[in-house]
């Protein structure tokens, strides 16, 4: 799956002998690569949660005792932070998905690659910041 034809860029100031993560210092990935990587990571992350969520909702059929007893997991602070990260991933995936569809069906979209990516970030923040605010407020209250 390729998202963009931006030519391979130089690895910034890294020297030929640099190894490991240090070789990427100063490297600015092209927006197409960044948006693609985020799309895949968020997509697989949301899928992982979806599978867990199907299992937990299946337990509803075993009655209130079984289901309510296991809810302490989702109410644990670690899971509530995870819940906010999940929403962030979902919102990014939704916003960037629209960008992908635009590129697929709108002939000239590729000319605005950078602007479209910044638009994705803007839409993401416009949705995520208020959502996170309400979720954190409910959590600390």
């Amino acid at each position, binding site marked *: 799956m390729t998202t963009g034809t931006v030519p391979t860029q130089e690895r910034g100031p890294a020297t030929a002998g640099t190894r490991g993560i240090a070789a990427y210092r100063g490297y600015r990935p092209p927006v197409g690569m960044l948006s693609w990587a985020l799309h895949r990571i968020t997509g697989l992350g949301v899928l992982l949660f979806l599978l867990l969520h199907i299992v937990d909702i299946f337990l509803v059929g075993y009655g209130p005792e079984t289901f*309510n007893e296991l809810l302490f997991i989702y109410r644990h602070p670690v899971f509530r932070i995870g819940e906010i990260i999940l929403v962030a991933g979902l919102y990014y995936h939704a916003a960037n998905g629209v960008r992908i569809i635009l590129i697929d069906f709108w002939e000239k979209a590729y000319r605005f690659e950078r602007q479209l990516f910044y638009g994705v970030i803007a839409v993401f923040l416009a949705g995520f910041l208020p959502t996170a605010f309400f979720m954190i407020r409910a959590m600390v209250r």
Partner: protein
Amino acid sequence: MSAPRPRVGRERPAGGFELYSWYFFRISGLLLIFLAITHVVIMHVINTVDEIDWNFVADRWGSPFWRAFDWLMLFLALLHGLNGARLAVDDYIRARGWRIFAHSILWSAAVIFLIIGSIAVLTFDPSAFQAASTAAGS
């Protein structure tokens, strides 16, 4: 004369199953934006995990509308997500044996999770438990 369009995005497959999955990926994605964000706002912003319990789900699934909503979302999200995982497998797993193994896992997951999810959404009957708890409570 305009320059040829650069190859951007995932190339649209020529036909067959891959083309159908290409269209399904995009159409289900658009529907899921509406379904999943509605779901998040109702279940994580207006309500939170503090309020949601068995009774909450029983109330909600008293309405056929929410059962249909949840089942449609289950169906689209599961197939959309596993199709994405299938593309990731195609990108990274090269050895033939491992590919067959990974694709088998994904197709099995699609069938199994669709079945248990459908059982949960469609066959849930709270009245048995509610009758039992009323009897125990009185």
